[in-house]
């Protein structure tokens, strides 16, 4: 992630050097205001970039065929999410520099920060669990990728014949199952052994038959954990600072909390995740805040998509999964009605679809593992920042209530 390191280096360096100078001179309020303003501007810029990159691409599927796809990463695609994660890492580094480095620690244990910071740390912990659930969700996506690859292997063989079409059909039905069964099972993998009549006969004499029908549930987090509820809890006490507070450190704390909520919410919406039913689409950020404009626009855009897709057993809004789902539907239709030899016209159509699936699989193969690693990086970053902030609080000796 060259972008990340570049940003980090420059911001951290600049802020810390300058702050050290200022701290020596006493009276750093103006500097603080300037820092906050700069931070807001960076937030606005970065999210504006994300927004513009998601608007450039109008019709999501046809565009890929006409223009070289290399230029733009489709909205909510793996690469787009990676950009978002990069943005988060940059904001986070900048935020921490502002909050901790060179600052008098007693400042963050005074009102209103004495309340806002523990709330933020609480959000951080919830975010960690979401990171884990999403990492696990990516395994589901990878599973779908593996199944889609079987479809490609089968249908890339020409001419289409009954055997390969059946093979594809089998993989497609597993794929659909993996895509839809997710939220209900609440677990990671939902393979179901498609035993025919024989299966049940064999199973009857099999002491393990429970495994054939009753899938063992695996929760990625804990049993009753729900991504939707976590997002809800993270949003619940998120309030824009008002009055005097708006000009102080309460403002970047609010901004950072908003960014983290936005990131987690987007990931939950995009990637299959434990229990997403009732995922809120409300974003409690006042529309007049300049830095939040692009973020709000993105939120609305994703929210609309979510509302559209939520009802029909969502696979998540991840662009690649949406593509797979669409292709899978039409390929299933093709496979159901297949008769040898296939019509010439149909063959071309299917070939195009298979090529698209193959292309999607390639993108997944390239992007999913780096995405997982990046989420892990975000995880570690959140852990580290939390520890650092707790250390500062500890040193002021003012943490009376245990902080989770």
């Amino acid at each position, binding site marked *: 992630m060259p972008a990340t390191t570049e940003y980090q280096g420059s911001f951290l360096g600049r802020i810390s050097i300058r702050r050290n100078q200022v701290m020596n001179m006493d009276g750093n309020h103006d500097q603080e205001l300037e820092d906050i303003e700069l931070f807001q501007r960076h937030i606005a810029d970065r999210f504006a970039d994300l927004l513009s990159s998601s608007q450039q691409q109008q019709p999501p599927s046809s565009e890929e065929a006409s223009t070289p796809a290399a230029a733009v990463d489709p909205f909510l695609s793996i690469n787009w999410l990676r950009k978002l994660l990069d943005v988060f890492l940059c904001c986070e580094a900048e935020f921490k520099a502002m909050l901790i480095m060179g600052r008098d620690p007693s400042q963050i244990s005074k009102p209103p920060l004495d309340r806002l910071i523990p709330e933020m740390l609480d959000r951080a912990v919830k975010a960690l669990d979401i990171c884990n659930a999403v990492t696990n969700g990516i395994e589901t996506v990878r599973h779908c990728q593996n199944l889609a690859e079987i479809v490609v292997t089968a249908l890339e063989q020409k001419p289409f014949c009954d055997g390969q079409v059946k*093979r594809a059909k089998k993989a497609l039905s597993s794929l659909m199952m993996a895509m839809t069964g997710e939220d209900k099972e609440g677990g990671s993998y939902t393979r179901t052994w498609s035993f025919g009549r024989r299966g049940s006969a064999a199973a009857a004499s099999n002491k393990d038959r429970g495994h054939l029908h009753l899938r063992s549930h695996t929760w990625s987090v804990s049993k009753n954990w729900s991504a939707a509820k976590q997002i809800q809890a993270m949003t619940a006490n998120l309030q824009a600072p008002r009055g005097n507070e708006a000009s102080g450190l309460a403002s970047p704390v609010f901004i950072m909390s908003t960014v983290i909520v936005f990131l987690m919410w987007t990931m939950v919406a995009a990637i299959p995740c434990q229990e997403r039913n009732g995922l809120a689409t409300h974003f409690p950020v006042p529309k007049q805040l300049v830095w939040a404009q692009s973020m709000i626009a993105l939120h609305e855009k994703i929210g609309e998509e979510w509302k559209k897709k939520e009802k029909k057993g969502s696979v998540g809004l991840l662009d690649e999964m949406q593509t797979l789902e669409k292709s899978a539907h039409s390929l299933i239709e093709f496979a159901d009605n297949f008769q040898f030899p296939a019509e010439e016209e149909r063959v071309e159509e299917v070939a195009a679809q298979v090529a698209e699936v193959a292309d999607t699989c390639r993108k997944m193969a390239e992007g999913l593992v780096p995405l997982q690693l990046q989420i892990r990086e975000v995880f570690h970053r959140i852990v580290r920042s939390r520890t650092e902030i707790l250390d500062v609080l500890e040193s002021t000796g003012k943490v009376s209530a245990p902080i989770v």
Partner: protein
Amino acid sequence: MAGYQSMIPIHEREQHVIAAAHHILKALGATKNLSDDMRKILADLDVHLSIMNGHNESNGGGGIVEVEKRLKRAEIKVLSWDSSQTMIWDSGSREVSEYLGAVVEIQTVKQSLGGLSLIENGKVKECLYRANSVLQMAMSRLEEELVHILLQHKQYFEPEYTFFHSCQEDLVYDESFVSLEDESVEETYQRVSSDDVSGEHIVDLVHPRVIPDLKSIANVMFASNYDQEFCEAFIGVRKDALNVVILAMEKFSIEDVLKMKWFTLSSEIKKWIWSMKIIIRVYLASEKQLCNKILGEFGSVCSFCFVEIAKASLLSLLNFGEAVAMGSLRPEKLFHLLDMYEVLSDLLVDIDSLLFEEVSSYVRIEFHELLRKLSHYARATFFELRSAIVSDTSVKPLPRGGIHPLTRYVMNYIKALIIYDHTINMLLEDQDMDCSNPVTELENEQQVSSSITSCALACQLRLITSALECNLDNKSKLYKEDALRYIFLMNNIHYMVQKVKNSDLRHFFGDEWIRKHNGKFQQHATSYQRATWSSVLSFLRVDGSPVSCSILKATTPKERCKEFSIAFEEVYKNQTQWSITDPQLQEDLRIANLKVIHAYRSFLGITRISDKHIKYSVDDLEKLLLDFFEGSRRPLRNSHRR
């Protein structure tokens, strides 16, 4: 096979060559002990020859008919099983090898026909089409058989979970330092040993009898390019099997772990330690071997499958560790953290060897990272003890001057700690140590005989006890009576010395420390004596020695004797309530107090006061002195009076 084209002009000689080749193949095929590969090659050749023959004879005549016949036979086999209710692998080895033979036959036919791309013969096309369909049917069937065998012959390894039973009651250090008695520490604190699952413990997760069956299915499916389906099914079933094991371990969110009560957390940590060992040393090591046995020949596929099976369970173990390492610094956690650290550093070798491939390097690195975090956290927790001691303040003195719970806590804590000496020294050496403390310097002047006394842990332990002494000294200032203050200090330092002397702590503290602290509590005992008796004894001064205390108004022996009795009664009332729990120390101090008796006896002897003025006889006093330091108030009974 590029040579086919040139063969088309028929020569009789070639016909002979083909016929001869057929014969050779038949002869070779009749040989037993042929490897599967060899058999396949022969079958392959056979088909080729048939097709060549066919072409040579009459343009799509006899040869293809022969191939078609063979396909038909194989097709019948596959179809007959397709409608059957029983599983092939349950029906005996003959059925199995016939079925596998049929599949190989189809593959061969398919490959050979596919190779003949130039032949736009309708018959060939149709054969190819049929071969594809039958092959798909067979592959689908083999996948079912695979799953069936894996499930049917799955074996569980059920290790005893010993910790649950032996260690239910856990040492709970609470913040007020009061819940701890010596016995509870010694009896309940059991270190989670990392030796009980040492070395490799490979078990058969699937009955060894069916390994060749699984392998043959793998071979056939891979040969037919159905490797993806094989892996899909294999990973799925094995992952489920592993999940059953993991499910015994409840999963927690990080939030849950951070909010967990210490008691619950401590038992979950023990489960984690146990699961780590069992899952990594037994389950995953065995799983890896299973993968190797079945898929070893297929290179990277083997490690891919293993990682897919293992990843979720490894990540879940990892996350619990991460969550624990995020918790607050509390001294009571140290033991468990050290256990976690030890088990993980122990298991890293295993993790490294299980996950040495590129595909899994990220999980491996995460475990190394966790170890680093745990070491950092354990070290910080270790230092936390001293800060906890320093910041422990009381407002009221401990009644009766006994052993303060803090003293018990600290001494038992460090006593339990030294079994981890190796690990702690390692953790401490990572850190730049500051040993230039007066306590240690003093000791460094002496010749430090053993190396244990000078190790990093020993250094820290002395810093801890000197922080404790300092704290006790502050606490002692809360007493209004000097004598009780000395009893308190004596009791506590004596306790410390005893703990050190009677355990392995003595190696860490060294003789010098013990000698010095023996001196300290004896000093306090002497101070106690002086504080208690000097004023009382002043009443008994005889033979004209100047009365030092000007408060003394009584001048006649009779009056002084009376004053003495009153003063003694006062001491008695107080000091019978005070407490010295150590019987030896109690005894020693009572004996020391006997000097009052000597003074009294000689006073009575010299002054010859008549008995009626004497409230207590020497014997009375001696008996009364025995009531001292029992820790309960005693009334002066009348029986002592004459």
